[in-house]
Structures are given as structure tokens and as C-alpha cells.
């Protein structure tokens, strides 16, 4: 029994010493939720290891201005005006051997934006609307609404085989098949929800009539036919004149000469 206690105490102390010799970084704050500005700080508690410097990374990318070669065990990073650009995973990295680092998550409400705020579709063709999201964390739920008379009507995937919704954390697509001018023109709202909140954006869908392109087409074809006709008529009217210039005058001249000759002969006689 005593042997068991001794062994367990030895193991516990070994583990404790291992735990205490592993560098411990205290982060302040542990997590940032929906704040406008914050100061992130990391404090390396174990001073036994030599520190050659430190830096911060944002989503894996090194922040150049945070690089330092000072051997301080405390490093901080100030974030002013936190938007969805600056949200993400921040890591403080100490240049020890081996490197030690710890992550602080900066979370904001997701930013949802439409790829295009005005979409077009052709009648009886399909119309596609896309919304993307940036920030951290990305939405876990996407919902599409159609705005009708000031009310939002939720669109459920697969109703009437016309609506298809495909969603991934950073992108959602609403496809409407067989667009009709009466029913489908209007505002569509995509809404993305994450643990921190919901964000929306609006897209206006325009449906073009099938015959919309037909009028310019017919207009230009008519213009071409008119021009070609004018050019051919002009050429036909000029052509007989040109041919006459070459051949007819010869004949007419000879006739005139002949007549003159007759006149002269008669006169002489």
C-alpha cells in the first residue's frame, strides 16, 4: 500500500514538474467577442528558456510590425476598430527553442454580402443569386427570404422544384428555375447566422422577357436590308450610264456622222 502511494506520488510529482517546466503562456483576454477595440497580450510564465524575440500572426499570416527581437516575456498587440477584416485567430509566438505559441480568437458578427446586388435572368431560364460571407466565425446557418409586400417569406429548399439552395460556410446560392415575370421579380434577402449573431443582404432580381433582345435584332436586320437595297439600286441606276459611256456613244456618233454625211451629200448635190 505504502509502495503504491509512493509510486503514485512520484508519478504525480514527475507530471507536475513536467507540467511546470512546459512554458505556460497566459493570454489576456482568453477570447474576444463583439468588441470594438481590444489589447491582446501574452505572458510567458517560464523564464528558464532564453527568449530571442516574438511576433504575432493573424490567421496564419505573420504581422510584420509585431516582430521584435527583444527578450521580453510579455508581448501585446492592440486592435483598434475591430471589423470582420480583423477578426480571426491571432497567435502570439515566442522565439524560444522550441517555439511556443498560443491562440486568441477574435470573433465578430459575420459579414454577409451579395456578389451582385442586381441580378438578371431570362424568362423560363434559370436565375442564380449568390451571397458570400467574410469574417470569423463563418455562419453556420443560411436562410433565404423573398420580400413580398413588406413581409419576408422564407424560401424552403425544394418547394415546387423551382427553388434550390446550396450552402457552404462562406457561400450560399439560390437557384430559381423557370423564371416567370409575374412571380419572381423582386427583392431577395440572404441571411447568415453564426454563434455571435445574424447578418443580411438584399439582392434585386430582374427577369427579362424572352423577346427583349428580339426588337434590337429586328431593327438592325431591317437597317441592313435597307442599306443593301439602296446600294444595289444606286448601282443599277449608274451601271447603264457607264456601259453607255463605253459603247453607245460610238454607235450614236457613227449614226450622227452618217446623217451628217447624208445631209452633206444632199447639200452638195
Amino acid at each position, binding site marked *: 500500500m505504502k509502495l503504491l502511494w509512493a509510486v503514485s506520488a512520484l508519478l504525480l510529482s514527475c507530471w507536475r514538474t513536467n507540467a511546470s517546466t512546459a512554458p505556460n503562456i497566459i493570454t489576456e483576454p482568453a477570447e474576444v467577442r463583439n468588441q470594438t477595440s481590444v489589447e491582446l497580450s501574452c505572458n510567458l510564465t517560464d523564464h528558464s528558456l532564453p527568449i530571442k524575440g516574438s511576433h504575432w500572426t493573424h490567421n496564419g499570416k505573420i504581422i510584420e510590425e509585431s516582430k521584435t527581437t527583444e527578450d521580453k516575456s510579455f508581448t501585446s498587440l492592440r486592435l483598434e476598430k475591430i471589423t470582420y477584416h480583423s477578426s480571426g485567430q491571432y497567435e502570439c509566438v515566442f522565439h524560444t527553442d522550441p517555439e511556443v505559441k498560443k491562440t486568441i480568437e477574435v470573433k465578430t458578427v459575420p459579414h454577409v454580402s451579395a456578389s451582385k446586388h442586381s441580378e438578371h435572368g431570362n424568362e423560363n431560364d434559370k436565375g442564380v443569386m449568390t451571397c458570400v460571407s467574410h469574417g470569423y466565425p463563418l455562419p453556420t446557418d443560411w436562410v433565404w427570404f423573398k420580400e413580398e409586400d413588406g413581409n419576408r417569406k422564407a424560401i424552403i429548399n425544394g418547394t415546387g422544384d423551382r427553388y434550390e439552395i446550396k450552402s457552404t460556410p462562406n457561400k450560399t446560392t439560390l437557384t430559381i428555375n423557370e423564371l416567370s415575370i409575374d412571380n419572381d421579380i423582386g427583392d431577395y434577402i440572404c441571411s447568415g447566422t453564426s454563434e455571435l449573431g445574424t447578418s443580411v443582404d438584399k439582392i434585386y432580381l430582374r427577369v*427579362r422577357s424572352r423577346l427583349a*433582345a428580339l426588337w434590337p*435584332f429586328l431593327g*438592325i436586320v431591317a437597317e*441592313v436590308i435597307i*442599306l443593301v437595297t439602296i446600294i*444595289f439600286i444606286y448601282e443599277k441606276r449608274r451601271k447603264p450610264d457607264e456601259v453607255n459611256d*463605253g459603247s453607245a456613244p460610238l454607235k450614236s456618233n457613227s449614226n450622227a456622222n452618217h446623217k451628217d454625211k447624208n445631209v452633206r451629200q444632199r447639200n452638195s448635190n
Partner: protein
Amino acid sequence: MPPAAGSNLGYKPPDGGWGWAVVFAAFISIGFSYAFPKSLTIYFKEIQEYFSVSYSEIAWVSSVMLASMYAGGPVSSILVNRYGSRPVVMVGGIMVSVAMVLASFGTTIIHLYLCVGVIGGFGLAFNLQPALTIIGTYFQVKRPIANGLAMTGSPVVLSTLAPLNQFLFDSFGWRGSFLILGSIVLNCCVAAALMRPVNKCAQPNPNTDSPQFNGAVTEGADADTSTELANPLPGECQDESKSKSCCSKFIDLSLFRHRGFLIYLSGNVVMFFGFFAPVVFLAPYAKHQGTDEYSAALLLSIFALVDMFIRPITGLIGNSKWVRPRIQYFFSFAVSYNGICHLLCPLASGYKGLVVYAVFFGSAFGMLSALLFEVLMDLVGAHRFSSAVGLVTIIECGPVLLGPPISGALVDIFGDYKYMYYACGILMLLPGIFFFIMHYYNYKKLEEERRQSTAGEMRTSEEAVQLKMDQNVKTTNETDR
């Protein structure tokens, strides 16, 4: 003095008058032929998403169209030789129009390959060759200017079509745009209506048999028969023009024994490998250097603007009395200038360097394009130009299609654009030097042949005079008795 190679045409080309309307018509036809395939690329992204195909599959549409346009060259030449320019351009315009209208109703990517690619490409081929051929029949003295002006159609129509396509796409989507483009391309039929066959009877024939610097007179055996039709009678005019030797052949394969034609063909085949690739890669290279997308697009606009103005200017220079007799050297200079531009491109640093390169490249490209067909006309003569251009385009088909992908492969292998520019520079400089040497040799041979033929003529005319004098002496002797 510009060479009077028109003496072998059998008539004196108008060199003006309705010729300028024909130049305008050729401007439109050539413009659509070259600019249409390039401007369609604006729709590719949307069509790619619509049909859910990969980028290379959609790029095939452009390649098939270009390939059909070049492969249709000989067919077009045969038809022009048989029927003249006007019907062929009319048919070509209708073909492209029908192709675009059918494509707008297409449901698979294969429809686009067939409609836009094959039928559209053939239709454009039927526009290009006749337009070039008819300039040769209307112009002799002012032909370089006419060619330069007609070739300006390509950048002008491209600059017009590019924003127009964007506008059509935003307003009507790709299907509606294809429908409307089908009607716009029908304007080629208007151009066809303007291409009145030249009136070969109205002008008196000067009968100046002074073949100076043109190889066509001494080398073209079949062309000599037309000099016999020097003064056609008005009544027989219409029939003569149909049975003229220049129009009755299907396609003139004896060109492959023509020295000048072979020089032109061999140089061009090498040159075309490096001709289009720098244009294709100008914007990507700029983006690679770090410029933003808008500035990269601006580079292309600068290039197109310089190109647009340099073509008529090149025509004017080519027409001047110092350059016209030795226009082949001017062409060799243009090719070499292109090569040097590309070799020096990697030295351009920063955006300003790229702008300078775009200006120089634009002028080089325009100079070369304006002279490309003028020198062929100068070498083979207006008679055989139709067959010549058909043979040249089908043989150039390979380099034109393979050039950009090979350059792209070079960029991918080395990860740097400068090797591609070095390769293109060499591929243009070598033909340029080749042209200089070969044309120097060619001009010398032509001088020799001309001297021999005039010496032969003088001998025969001396003998004829001697014979006449003997006859006169004989008759006077007889009358005396």
C-alpha cells in the same frame, strides 16, 4: 516610281473613285474577321458557369473559330476565283449571322462549338480573303495606303465591339447578346454590297509594258497571256472579264514554285509562332509585375490605340517613292523591329516601362499587320493573290493556334515571363533577318531576269525592224523594176 505591275492585269485599276468605298467595305469585313473572335471572350465566364464546364473547354470555342477561319482560306480562295468577291462576302456575312442566332438558342457546349466555332469561323474566312483580294483589283499605285486603311479595321472594330459586348451582356445576357451580335455581323452584307466588281473596260489601257521591280511579270507564265488582252473592245468586255486567266483557275498551286511566295511562306510560318502570344500575355504579365487589373487593361488600350494609328501611317510610308520599290525590306524591318521589342521587354521595369513597351509594341504590331498582305500582293501580283492568301492562311493555321499555348507552357515551366519574351523575340528576329537576306537575293534575281527579258525583247524587236527594212528594200526594188 512605283512599279507598274498593273500592266499584267490587263486593265488600269481605278486607284480611287469607287475604290475608296471598297476600302471602307474591306475595313468592315477585315475588322469583323479579326476582332469578332477576340471580342467574344467577354461572354466566356458567364457561359462557362451556365453550362458548368471548365475554362479550357470554353476556350476551345475561340480556338475552333480561329482554326475554321484559317482553314477556310483555300475554300474561300477557290470561290473568289470562281465567283468574285461580292457573292462570297455576302454568303460569309449571312453564315456568321445564322451561326450566332443558332448559338443563342444552344443548349449544350457542343452547339456552341458547331455554331460559333465551325460555321462562324468559315463565315469569317469568307469575309477575310475576298476583302483583301478586291483591294488588289481596285488599287495599284495607291495600294499600300488602301491596304493600310483596310487593315485598320481590326483594331477599330475591336475597340468598338469590346465595350459594346459588355453593354449587351449587362442588358440582355449572353443569349440575347448573341442574337443581337448576329444582326450586327449582318452588316458584312452591306460591305459585300459595296464590293462592286471592278469595271475593267471603262478605262483605256496605257499598255506600258515596263515591268520594273515586280516578280509577277517575269515569273508568272500564265499572267503573260493577259497582256494580249490589252485593248478589249467594249462589246466583248463583259465576256472577256469572265474568261480572264486570273479568274478561271480553281486554286493556283504553281505558287509553290514561286520564289517570292516560298520566301514569304517560310518566314511567316516561323514568325507566327511568336506573333500573337505577346498580345495575349500583355495583361497577365503586367499583373504578374504587380499592377492592378485596371492599369493592366489600360496597357491593352494603349496598345490598341497606337496600333490603330500606325496602320494608315505605315500605308502612307509604304506608298512613298523611296519605300514602294523596296517594300520587302520595309516588311523585313517591321518583323525585326517586333523581335527587338520583345527581346527588350524584360528590361522594362515598373509600370512606366510597361507603358513604353506597349507603345513600341503597338507600333511594331500595327506596322507588321498593315504590310502583311501588301507584300504578298507585291510578290505574287493581284492575279494570284487570291490563291496565295488562301494557301498562306491554311499553312499559318498551325503556328497561330500553337503559338499562345506553347508560350503559356514556357511561362508555366520557368515561372517567369521573360523566357517567353526572349523566345518570341528570337522567333521574330530570325525571320526578319531571313527576309532581309532572301529578299536581297530575290531582288537581284528579278533584276537579272528583267534585264534578260528586255534584252530578249530588244533583240526580237531589232530583228523585226531589220526584217521590215529588208522587206521595204525588196518592195522598192520590185516597184523600181
